């Protein structure tokens, strides 16, 4: 179980990287953290002729704030997101999600952009991207393009990236400071790939009603799943357990999970219903009635 021979490049600019990708005409793969790619190489499920290592390109590993957006560079390591004071303060949801991503050793090397580009529908970060309506900034031979999350995640392990394109950064509209957030995942063992996971954002108005609700699921289809119909049915109502249970029941019918060796479709529906209930409860209880910031819908 060793990789097939390949050529290795470590360019120092995006332009250089793109020209190598073009030269290899689809036979080159980008190397970010390698935590998803190298297993494929080791098992010879992927046999690229060349690897283009992005770690030599400057300014791909920044975490910054621009207005109401958190901008995370594609090469930001998971461990950097975990430790970032900016993320802890402005997007605790992301920090909570990160604690479910693999294990410490994986998070040392794995990257934000790598996880997104790998597009595993059971992964944590794509679900967070869906929850906050993130946009993806991509560069290729034809120049720059920006893709909303719905366009970025196409199906199982397939993003919209062409073989000659590079995901450069992800823009995450920040939840307002008054929003409560929650992230929960069920896996057979802590750190395993999720069977099903859920994430929620809830904002409360002065009357204590849910002025904003966002719900996303992972592991229930080919891409992260936003429960827009369920969100609509919850908005304007006061938080209460019966409401969450109904939301869970609605979610279970809304999704189209597949069956596999890890879980049947029915089991995934059960998990989805339970997780939706729990994340709603947690997010609503964490939402603050005071300190309302600008509401981004």
């Amino acid at each position: 179980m060793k990789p097939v021979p390949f050529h290795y490049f470590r360019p120092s600019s995006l332009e250089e990287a793109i020209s190598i990708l073009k030269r290899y005409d689809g036979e080159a793969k980008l190397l970010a953290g390698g935590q998803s790619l190298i297993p494929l190489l080791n098992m010879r499920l992927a046999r690229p002729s060349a690897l283009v290592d992005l770690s030599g390109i400057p300014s791909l590993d920044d975490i910054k704030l621009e207005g109401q957006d958190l901008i995370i560079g594609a090469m930001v390591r998971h461990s950097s997101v975990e430790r970032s004071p900016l993320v802890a303060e402005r997007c605790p949801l992301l920090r909570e999600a990160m604690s479910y991503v693999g294990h410490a050793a994986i998070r040392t090397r794995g990257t934000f952009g790598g996880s997104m580009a790998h597009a595993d529908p059971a992964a944590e970060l794509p679900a967070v991207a869906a929850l906050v309506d993130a946009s993806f900034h991509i560069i290729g031979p034809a120049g720059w393009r920006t893709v909303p999350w719905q366009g970025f995640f196409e199906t199982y392990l397939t993003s919209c990236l062409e073989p000659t394109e590079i995901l450069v950064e992800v823009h995450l509209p920040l939840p307002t400071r008054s929003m409560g957030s929650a992230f929960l995942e069920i896996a057979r063992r802590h750190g395993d790939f999720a069977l099903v996971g859920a994430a929620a954002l809830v904002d409360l108005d002065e009357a204590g009603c849910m002025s904003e609700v966002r719900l996303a699921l992972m592991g229930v289809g080919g891409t992260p799943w936003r429960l827009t119909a369920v969100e609509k049915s919850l908005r304007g109502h006061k938080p209460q357990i019966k409401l969450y249970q109904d939301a869970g029941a609605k979610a279970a019918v809304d999704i189209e999970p597949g069956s596999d060796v890890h879980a049947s479709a029915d089991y995934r529906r059960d998990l989805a219903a339970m997780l939706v209930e729990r994340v709603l409860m947690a997010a609503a209880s964490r939402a603050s009635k005071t300190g309302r910031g600008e509401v981004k819908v």
Partner: protein
Amino acid sequence: MSISQSNSCHAIRITVNGQHYEHEVEPRLLLSDFLRHTLELTGTHVGCEHGVCGACTILLDGQPARSCLTLTVQADGHEITTVEGLATNEQELSPLQEALRTHHGLQCGYCTPGFLITASAYLRDNPSPTEEQVRAALSGNLCRCTGYQNIVAAVLDTARELHGKSSTKEM
């Protein structure tokens, strides 16, 4: 054992356990194989080669990483610590190694280097963990022999010994 060279070899400079090395390596040479076969540091073990079992865990610039999921060329210019680099010297085991021994925290020993690396880094950054926290921190290292409880006990014992206080209950 020699590693056959392809037509695209890369020169790398790497520091392992404080010692500098310069070598020419194939891009596809995994760090785990470089450590074991080129440097003959066979303390790092290879279990699954897809990042799940943790036997190959080393420290890359002080942080735990899977050497089976690192290409040697990616480690160019970096510092690696393997299990061979944990003991203070050839005569003395590190406190954690000593605790693992006295708590009978290993049987076949295959997973042990990975546990030692993971736990050493964890205790360095988290001096007073609870049992639950230790179990979570070690969840990326699989053991088929011990059932984990003696490993956890050794880690907690080391934390107590090194830092004098702990918020754990007695094991």
